[in-house]
């Protein structure tokens, strides 16, 4: 299967050039292509038929992982592979490495980007719930040069929907600042290894020296309404001591209730809750351990 005719192909070298193309320079039906690992599927199957493509590969400024005074900044065009292998990413954001390290396969991780994943916001994606669970802030810029910071929670809407307006470019993902003794983890389940997630969860925990959870964030994806934070589970995790399996399970039960899963080809809705509890336990356990510096990433 082949793409429908693509009239124009642009490869801007700067953010300014890209946003100018977005705000009209590339025509009505223009589409950004980042890593293209989802977009090319959609283009080849003619789910979408853009007249113009704006390829961001030459904008070097969008491809970086660095720290600023608030925490971690990841350029939108940074590949999954670069994120997964970055040893500097701290325990607080280690869920990002979990997620990026298991998207698709090696080839996909070499091309696919964090920004592309967030802007596509596919139902079965790893990065949207991860960024939600880490309370990421997204930096966007338009042709007028206006920069805007949006919380992941506000940015990620229903599947394939985001808060990005058509003339805006996602520039970077900001994480932090994180409290000391914060750990995070991401886990997913699919029928075959590293498949698109049927169930997934991101957990971020701030833990006291007494191994009691002070603050928790829990996000789920693979839902027909889009990724979501689960406050009931977050509340339930607060005050839970590391290793308290019963309390952790209770929190995950709350998450499963709130998930409102639908049955699909891979698992029925009740079973998804079972899976969520299994992977959720793992995610919470790893997040606790990371918070207390017990395991690396």
């Amino acid at each position, binding site marked *: *299967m*082949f793409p*429908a*005719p693509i009239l124009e192909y642009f490869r801007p070298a700067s953010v300014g050039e890209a946003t100018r193309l977005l705000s009209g320079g590339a025509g009505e039906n223009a589409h950004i292509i980042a890593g293209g690992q989802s977009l090319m599927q959609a283009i080849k199957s*003619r789910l979408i038929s853009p007249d113009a493509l704006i390829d961001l590969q030459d904008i070097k400024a969008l491809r970086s992982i660095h720290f600023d005074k608030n925490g971690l900044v990841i350029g939108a065009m940074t590949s999954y592979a670069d994120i997964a292998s970055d040893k500097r990413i701290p325990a607080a954001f280690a869920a990002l490495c979990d997620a990026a390290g298991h998207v698709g396969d090696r080839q996909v991780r070499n091309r696919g980007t964090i920004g592309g994943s967030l802007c596509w916001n596919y139902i079965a994606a790893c990065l949207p719930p991860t960024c939600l669970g880490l309370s990421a802030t997204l930096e966007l810029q338009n042709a007028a040069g206006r920069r805007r910071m949006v919380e992941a929670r506000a940015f990620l809407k229903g599947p394939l929907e985001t808060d990005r307006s058509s003339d805006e470019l996602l520039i970077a993902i900001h994480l932090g600042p994180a409290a000391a003794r914060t750990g995070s983890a991401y886990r997913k389940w699919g*029928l*075959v*290894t*590293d*498949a*698109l997630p049927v169930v997934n969860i991101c957990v971020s925990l701030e833990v006291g020296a007494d191994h009691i959870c002070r603050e928790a964030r829990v996000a789920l994806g693979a839902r027909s309404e889009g990724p979501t934070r689960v406050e009931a589970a977050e509340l339930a995790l607060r005050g839970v001591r590391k290793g308290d399996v019963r309390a952790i399970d209770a929190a995950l039960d709350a998450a499963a209730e709130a998930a409102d899963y639908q049955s699909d*080809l*891979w*698992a*029925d809705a009740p*079973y998804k809750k*079972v*899976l969520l509890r*299994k992977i959720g336990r793992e995610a919470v356990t790893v997040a606790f351990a990371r918070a207390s510096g017990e395991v690396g990433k």
Partner: protein
Amino acid sequence: MNAHIRNEGDWVGASVNRKEDRRLTTGQGQYFADKKIPGTLHLVFVRSQQAHARIVSINTDAARALKGVVAVVTGADIRTQIKGLPQPVVVPSFAANYPDFWPLAVDKVKFHGEPVAAVIARDRYVAEDAAALVEIVYDPLPVVTDMEAALAEGAPIVHDGWASNEMFAMNYTGGGTPESEAAHARKVDEALAAAAVVIRRRFRVHRCGVTPLEPRGAMATWDDDGLTAWITTQRPHIDRLALSDVLEIPSDKVRVIAPRDQGGAFGVKAPFYREPILVCHMARVLGRPVRWLETREEHLMSVSQERDQIHNIEIGADASGRIVALRDNAIADNGDGCEGVYWGFVMPFFGAAVLTNAYDIPLCDIRIRVACTNKAVLSPARSFGAFAARFALDRAIDLLARELKIDPADVRRRNLIAELPYTTATGVHHDSGDYAKVFDHLTTLVDLKGFRAEQARSRAEGRHIGIGFSVGAELSGVSSAVLVSMENQPGFGAATVRVDPRGKVQVFEGDAPQGQGHETSMAQVVAQEFGIHPADVSLTTGDTGTTPFGSGTIGARGGSYTVSAVANACRALKSKMATVLLHDLKVEGVPSDVSFRDGRVFLTADPTQGKNFAALAERIVMAPLGLPAGMQAGLDQTEFFEADVPMLTFGAHAAIVEVDPETGIFKILRYVASDDFGTVINPIVVAGQVHGGVVQGLSNTMFEEFVYDENGQQLTATLENYKIANAADMINIESHHEAGSACPHTPLGSRGLGEGIPGPVPAALTNAVCDALAPFGIEVNRLPLRPNTIWRLLQDKAASKG
């Protein structure tokens, strides 16, 4: 390693590196899509989005108007130009309802994915643009997607003019008249009533198959020589005859070429399909080369779907576990049934025929009904028709064993056919070997006793591990006795061997391998026979213009039939060469006094007297003077091999798993196969066949499933949705063939293998999972075997106890 190596340094029995691999690891393979002819037009099918509907109208104007489009055709256009199917050449010798069909739908569509129109354009991209512009108006009809519903009174009828959806039905064991069938059924009833234990269960195996990585394709040219067609096919000679009949082109004007390199087939490329017919027809109509290259979506929508059977089993045994009687009322879902050679129903027919597997079951009542539904037709997949039957019977035997509280391995062992040859109640001939020995080797390999002790310890620690067994008596080639009735084709193996004046050997084989390594295995055999090096042997396959007639690479024919024809051709030539040598040396003797070794032909009794192999060949071919009286010149020999009896290959499988009862998630810890492959030609190639066959079986059992919704929409036409096992899902499969024995019916003692290997897999794996969960008492009698299914059964069990 191999117990049958005859001499140190022999080629047969050695793990020779494959001759194919240099080109295939450097990107030099020549697959179908790699063949290019300048000026080729590209054909793209427009396929039905409806499962069952009348075609009200097809508007092709916009498609035709697109720049670069050469033609757009519909069923209405071609139905008067070419014959429809069925045609006798591709119809089995069975009574059945054979639906009429053309390459493009006529009047109505019967499944989601049926070709309705075709666009021919100068390139594939443009052809696809045009295909999107073809407007089809449908009038939807009621859809039937369930086989039992399709057979019920009042069901929507798939084929116009049929009274019901029953395409084929058979009572295998009842004797042929209603009275004899009833009497036989009573006999089985009585035996079951008298049995110490009876198991009655329904076993359901889902629709899945073994889709190869290379999709199908066809390319045709038309010129003064007639039609030349390159087709991804396992049986070029059959395709040639069929194309000749359907397109009404004299057979001498049709040449079919199966590419030397084919990207897997596993049965999928064996039928005579509708798409190549249209490609060839359009090449003739347009007078230009036309090519169709199947997309993965087309492939998953229209072919590679198999299994899809229900087996209603009743099985009785005495207190010792000896089976006394078996009944099976089987049903299969055959989709629209439109497919040359197999018509979809030949697979379930065969599956039920071999239901009794390697077990000695004295009394059987076996029947099948095959239904047409609004789905794609079944197309062959490795473990042809038998995958579901193997699952049903080996699950039922495990349930018998549980009921009797005897280890399932013991019950199996007790019922294996003890004395060979043996003919089953359905007439399947078991030729040779020692089934019990092969099975016992398996239980030794897995240390069954030790495993049971470990299992008990693990259970005490809250871990649930289990072991499952199953067996398979699978085709070792298909004899004419079987193939003439089943597919209207001969079963013989055919090969031409030519020794050239430089001592190089060319082998010609009318089959069309797709990764089995024939170039290497056949060369090993030739090298062994002539005492030369495999590097001096080349193989040509798949071209009907140059190879002897053969029925194709199907049913494990390579290592049984074709290789035997090669060996016999070599032996005939050796006899001739030896006779000439004796004659030239003026030595009294018979050909068996002469040895072929290390590139020389010499007197065994006096190795100094002889000639180089090449020199002797040159003397016979290029200087045919003073030959023994009455001897013809030349060193070409064609042989047709037919074994004196139909042959099978026996194997036994064991799976060991660990299951988490909380989630139903399981892990395969070991998978072991013990097989009888007779004389093994290339052990590493044989191991590869087992690994691949087992993993296909596991992938079918655990992951793969073609899903249609209630409207007949196919939901699994991408590799994203049709899940195939990846490397991280699998483990190292252990393959053993030490307990085998040489086959007495082939010249080398070899047996054919590969085709049936997935067959025992679903039962071995499912039996292992059920064994692990024995304390919970769940039964898995339905595939796919997924964590969700296991968890659900555990919940239901807990609820019923609660």
